[in-house]
């Protein structure tokens, strides 16, 4: 891998590094020797407060040897490890190599554990406390940011603990949602529905589906609009369609809020719900355990 745009910088680093190391050794050799008159008291030559001088007491010789050892050490190090420009070093060490080795080692340690659970179905794994403990840890670290530590979600992020599923709630469907992600697309329907009064009527009809408080005088018009604009995805009865991720509108569970204003907003401007795909981040086996944990939340 070339880190430099031109070969000049490669050479520049090599020359500068080796030059500095060698210069250290040369300076050390010459500066550790001094011409003196015998018998004279050695001072540093500095004098403070008129007559306060500093003795130039020698350091032990082994101390100087330590300096030479550092020079030898640095040369050996530079020969073995990458450090001189683009040279890779005799050992061929690299940080990505080390990372890969550590991943491989972890794989060796934990692989059999994951394999054991991967052999079970999601539903079976959801009954194993050890699998749930691992699943919970992965969930808290990766999923809780949106879905909440307890998995009960928040506005825009579905509750995973209530056994109502937009995209299907069996083990396989949950695992698929995790691995491949989901794109929940409610298009802006204002133009298709009509004017503002039509939207208001439609929203009241949607509320009536779940038996929520609504303006009964507007339901008839709303029903008409629903059949024209919404039934294709949400079904004629508003029961939703897990194939499309169209939510069931009859159960008082609202991802984006169940107030009249909230529903009107949803109809007028649409909603974009994105569950990212975790295949590349968690991998198949860990996603399997997360699916088991999520499944256990609503099937205690």
């Amino acid at each position, binding site marked *: 891998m070339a880190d430099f745009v031109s070969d000049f910088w490669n050479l520049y680093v090599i020359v500068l590094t080796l030059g500095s190391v060698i210069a250290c050794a040369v300076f050390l050799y010459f*500066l*550790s*020797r*001094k*011409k*003196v*008159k*015998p*018998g*004279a*008291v*050695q001072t540093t030559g500095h004098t403070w407060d008129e007559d306060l001088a500093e*003795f*130039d*007491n*020698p*350091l*032990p*010789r*082994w*101390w*100087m040897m330590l300096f030479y050892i550092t020079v030898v050490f640095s040369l050996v190090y530079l020969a073995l490890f990458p450090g001189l420009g683009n040279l890779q070093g005799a050992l061929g060490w690299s940080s990505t190599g080390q990372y890969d080795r550590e991943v491989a080692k972890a794989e060796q340690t934990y692989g059999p554990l994951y394999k054991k659970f991967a052999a079970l179905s999601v539903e079976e794994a959801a009954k194993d406390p050890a699998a749930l403990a691992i699943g*919970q840890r992965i969930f*808290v670290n990766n999923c*809780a*940011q*949106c*879905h*909440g*530590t*307890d998995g*009960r*979600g*928040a*506005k825009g*992020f579905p509750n995973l603990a209530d056994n109502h599923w937009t995209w299907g709630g069996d083990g396989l469907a949950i695992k698929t949602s995790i691995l491949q992600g989901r794109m929940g697309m409610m298009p802006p329907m204002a133009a298709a529905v009509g004017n503002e009064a039509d939207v208001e009527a439609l929203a009241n009809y949607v509320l009536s589906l779940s038996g929520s408080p609504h303006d009964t005088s507007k339901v008839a018009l709303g029903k008409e609009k629903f059949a024209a604009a919404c039934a294709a995805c949400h079904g004629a009865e508003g029961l939703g369609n897990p194939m499309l991720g169209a939510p069931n509108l009859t159960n008082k569970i609202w991802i984006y809020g169940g107030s009249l204003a909230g529903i009107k907003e949803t109809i007028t401007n649409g909603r974009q719900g994105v569950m990212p795909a975790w295949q590349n981040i968690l991998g198949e086996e860990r996603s399997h355990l997360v699916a088991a944990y999520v499944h256990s939340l609503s099937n205690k």
Partner: protein
Amino acid sequence: MAHSADPSPGVEQTILLYAPSKKICARATTGRFNTWRWVFVFLTQAVYYLTPWLQWNGRQAVLFDLEARRFYIFDLLLVPQDFIYLTALLLISALGLFLFTAVAGRLFCGFACPQTVYTEIFMQVERWIEGDRHVRMRRDQEKSLAGRLPRRLLTYLAWIAIALWTGFTFAGYFTPIDQLAAGILQFELGFWQWFWMLFYAFFTLLQAGFMREQVCKYMCPYARFQSAMFDRDTLIVSYDTARGEWRGKRSRHEDYKAAGKGDCIDCGVCVEVCPTGIDIRDGLQYECIGCGLCADGCNSIMTKMQYPQGLIRFTTLNALDGKVAETAIRSRFVRPRVLVYATILLVITAIVFTSLMLRSPLQVNVIRDRGALAREVEGQYIENVYRLQITNKSHELRTLVIRSSGIDGITTAGDTRIAIDPSAYATAIIDLRVPIAVAEAMTPGAHKIQIEVLSELEPSLAVAQKATFFIPR
């Protein structure tokens, strides 16, 4: 200091600014201080070598399990969150050192520092195998290597054996020592266990066998800043110049006082016994580790000469100058510097011990969900989610109950009852709920609440943590 002995005056010559180290062959001595030194060698080493073998309630009494991050000291179980106690220990050690130094100089250096203790052990081994100072020095001058080599090798082997045992004991504080012993016999240890054992053994050998006083002179920072704790009432090993000078040889029956000589017969024993190779008669020096061996050596000569003891002794500068009587030295221990060090030491020790005694066996950290601050549940509650990280710092399994308070009608749902194994930790996920009617009457924003974790069987064992409850707009 130039260390050349060229006799031709005035001619410049090139010297190396780094001095070759002089070999110190300390002579054996007996006496009060030497006895005390060995008492401390045995005490400190008995504690060091035997502690890992102690058993307590079916496990190693003192074990620092770095991998599990659990530190066992008899009944005490420390976790990484208790790291502050290590700081406290260092603080107490440092202040203790200051106090002893102010009273009696470098007592720690001479009697209890691992560096001098191991040096003393290694020197004694050397004496047993190769003989005392004069024998070794004579052998060193002999030309024949073959004559010297067997004893030297035997010394090295003995040193290596002691060093290996020391390294093994060191590793035994971090890995159960019986497993470690078994692992060595079967040659089945991990890389790091071998590494630390051999690393510690190597440095024991290097520092006690070869570096010795060089460590005290050039590496130890304490030697350099201890003079800040000294004053004129500090006990130091000193040569009584007024009594000793002028030093010189004399015949046994000579009236040396009439000849203007002092009590020092200039026999050089004080220099020969010194483990750092200094001459105490030059006055207080930073190389002096306060071991008192020169005083022992000198006293043995004074006895032979039938002179009074104590030409070299532990005394203070004020006493030497005659400002304080020798008998009154102890009364000078009570002085502001000593009192201040002692008071701070006492206060900190008391605080640390009180806090250790009152320490709760439960450690609770509250982490609230940040992705979603609050949510409405079924038109009835406002709900906040919290994650509780609970560590059980005791040796019993504990069943804990989690409650909350601070807002009218607040309820706790989720993992409100949780069992945690001894010395393990667990995560509890809880939902705190406030009725909508209450929430609507409150100002939007964060409200202070308390989350309480208490033991089901001993309700007195409770930990309360502050937290906030968020009411949305």
